[in-house]
């Protein structure tokens, strides 16, 4: 570990000079045949290149017909460069192909060659190129250097979202047998075992029992961690990392304490013991839907009235933005499929609801009390996670996803400091490990991608003594735990918002 040196902080955050090919060798492991086939993709690339070539073009044509985003984004870019300096991977690696527009162009060049008149007639003039094996390898490398964080889409005058293009690229690569091991292996586990980390039901039960004992020892109070309880009011869907990873587990304890204090009955589900949905990362609608379906089934079986989602960024995007579409968790449906579930849910509450919405609502109504001094050892800042910030919402107002977690922190702790403008809220920088890149072989990329966030954190650490960065994403937590020490911080600097809630909440004697 000591041998890894992070990139140097920029004195003034200027735009880096280009370093051509700096990350050309960065590649995740390729998914094995078994992993590919387990989730319905071809095991490996065809022996014959022409076959792969044709399949890629055909798949691209199919996606262009299915996704307006892809079609419009392929055409609309004017190469203005507004996005060019906005990607944390470009800032950290200086590789020009990590500029969002250049990343898009890896696919746009092929799109132009095969799907546009100009590209068919004058390929060199419009930056069109033939699809070759080298091009496909380049896709595999650089589309696996995009965390689908959407920061570029905030600044593009046409809202071009590179994440959509990355997802399409991954979908095409999977469909010709060129998948990424980390994501596809995890998707296999969700289907087989029920969660990303491969924690089977009995182990989960043990873990939860252990947690009950720990909390009892700590507080003297019987805080329950119920599993598969039929007729509970709330079904909590949370990332499986919450069950045993550090610091995630402290937030799980926080949720349980909030539920305990609220008196609302709740349960976890062994069937849907995972909020994460890597189907989104690989841009595959079928997988996205199939993984989400477990939540629908669990909700119907357990007969719950409300569905609450734990601290996880992309999971909240899927839950908030896509669940109503995918599985009918939400309101306003007119079709029988969705109505079946929506009739069961209690529409006095938001469906689905973020755990932060749940907690903040209780705080606002005076339902929780805190001993704020318990957090006095922390000087806290908040890291907005990409998918929460730029792809979802909390509360009734646009931007509630920024206010609600901050409000909770301020309600449970005394010391709160914001990081520099331009690095928070919708302009937040990705942790560097999102989008299915949280794997060891990509550590170099992850360290470099964390640079802009680490710079902003260092600033408030120097100026205000910040020693705790709260966040509400399982991937952010895991990524920072790994890269913080490399940048000279303690790994416990990162933690969940509900970890702070857990520290301060008063139980029993309200």
């Amino acid at each position, binding site marked *: 570990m000591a041998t890894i040196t992070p990139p140097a902080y920029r004195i003034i955050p200027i735009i880096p000079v280009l370093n051509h090919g700096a990350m050309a060798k960065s590649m995740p492991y390729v998914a094995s045949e078994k992993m590919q086939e387990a989730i319905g993709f071809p095991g490996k690339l065809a022996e014959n290149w022409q076959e792969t070539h044709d399949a890629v073009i055909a798949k691209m044509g199919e996606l262009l017909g299915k996704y307006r985003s892809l079609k419009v984004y392929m*055409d609309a*870019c004017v*190469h203005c460069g*507004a996005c060019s300096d906005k990607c944390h991977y470009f800032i950290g690696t200086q590789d020009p192909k990590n500029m969002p527009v250049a990343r898009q162009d890896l696919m746009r060049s092929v799109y132009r060659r095969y799907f546009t008149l100009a590209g068919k007639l004058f390929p060199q003039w419009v930056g069109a190129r033939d699809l070759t094996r080298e091009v496909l390898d380049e896709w595999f490398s650089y589309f696996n250097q995009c965390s689908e964080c959407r920061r570029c889409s905030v600044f593009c005058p046409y809202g071009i979202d590179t994440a959509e293009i990355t997802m399409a690229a991954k979908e095409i690569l999977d469909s010709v047998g060129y998948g990424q091991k980390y994501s596809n292996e995890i998707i296999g586990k969700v289907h087989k075992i029920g969660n990303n980390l491969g924690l089977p039901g009995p182990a989960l039960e043990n873990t939860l029992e252990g947690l009950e004992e720990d909390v009892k020892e700590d507080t003297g109070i019987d805080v329950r961690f119920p599993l598969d309880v039929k007729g509970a009011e709330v079904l909590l869907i949370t990332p499986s990392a919450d069950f045993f990873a550090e610091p995630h587990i402290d937030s799980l304890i926080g949720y349980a304490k909030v539920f305990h204090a609220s008196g609302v009955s709740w349960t976890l589900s062994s069937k849907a013991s995972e909020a994460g949905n890597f189907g989104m990362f690989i841009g595959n609608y079928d997988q996205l839907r199939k993984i989400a379906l477990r939540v629908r089934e669990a909700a119907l079986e357990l007969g719950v009235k409300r569905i609450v989602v734990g601290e996880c960024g992309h999971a909240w995007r899927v839950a908030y933005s896509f669940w109503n*579409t995918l599985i009918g968790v939400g309101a306003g449906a007119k079709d029988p499929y969705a109505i079946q579930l929506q009739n069961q849910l209690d529409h006095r509450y938001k469906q689905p609801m973020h755990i932060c919405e749940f907690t903040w609502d209780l705080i606002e109504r005076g339902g929780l009390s805190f001993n704020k001094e318990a957090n006095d050892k922390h000087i806290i800042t908040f890291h907005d996670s990409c998918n929460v910030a730029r792809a979802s919402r909390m509360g009734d107002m646009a931007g509630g996803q920024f206010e609600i977690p901050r409000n909770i922190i301020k309600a449970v702790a005394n010391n709160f400091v914001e990081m520099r403008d331009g690095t928070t809220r919708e302009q937040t920088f990705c942790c560097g490990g999102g989008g299915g890149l949280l794997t060891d072989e990509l550590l170099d990329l992850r360290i470099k991608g964390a640079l802009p966030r680490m710079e902003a954190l260092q600033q408030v650490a120097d100026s205000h003594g910040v020693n705790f960065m709260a966040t509400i994403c399982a991937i952010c937590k895991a990524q920072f735990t790994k890269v913080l020490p490399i940048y000279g911080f303690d790994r416990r600097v990162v933690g969940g918002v509900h970890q702070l809630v857990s520290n301060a909440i008063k139980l029993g004697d309200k």
Partner: protein
Amino acid sequence: MNALITLLFTFAILAFVLGFGYRIYDYARTPAPLLIPTTPAPTSRVGMLLRMLREVTLFESLFKANLWTWAASWAFHVSLALVLIRHLRYFTEPVWFWVVLAQPFGLYAGLLMVAGLAALWARRIFVERIRYISTPSDHLMLALLLSIASSGLFIKFLFNTDIIGVKRFCLGILHFDFQALPGDGLLYLHLSLVALLLLIFPFSKLLHAPGIFFSPSRNQVDNPREKRHLSAWAAKLEK
């Protein structure tokens, strides 16, 4: 020569209308299966329309991204709009009153337009990362627009042409009652370049103009919990 220009123009206008129309049809028929507005996004339709309006008239996102690019690009587009309005006098008889009002602005706008284009081109040449992403067509597009603008300015300020004759020609095209164009080389150049621009419009990055109206990250309302959004192909999976 005269017939050639007439033919070219008629063809260019046709290609533009058909090509552009097809694009819009094509974007409109392509489904957007998931709600992906870039948040924070408006939670109502009115809010969304206002967001689009700000985006289209003020270039809000570009403003956030880079002030210089925004200034050059906004100057260019606004001038272009004013210049186009000024040109309406060649196509209307009697000339609409607001077009008359806009005449003097259109003139200054012509100069500003050249300045904006020059600034945009300078970025492409001198800023390393913008140079990296530029293709020959990006440069050619700027060259084309600059040539159109400067040939127009030359005609206006240095080599006045028979403007009445030009108007007769333009109205002629609109009414399929073709008239002769005054014999003036610079005018021929100006018009041929405009025809070329119209021709390549539906086949080039100029599609950003219709594209922005169809961009899901901008034109969707943030209401996924309240309404069920289901595209036709996705609905089939539920059967």
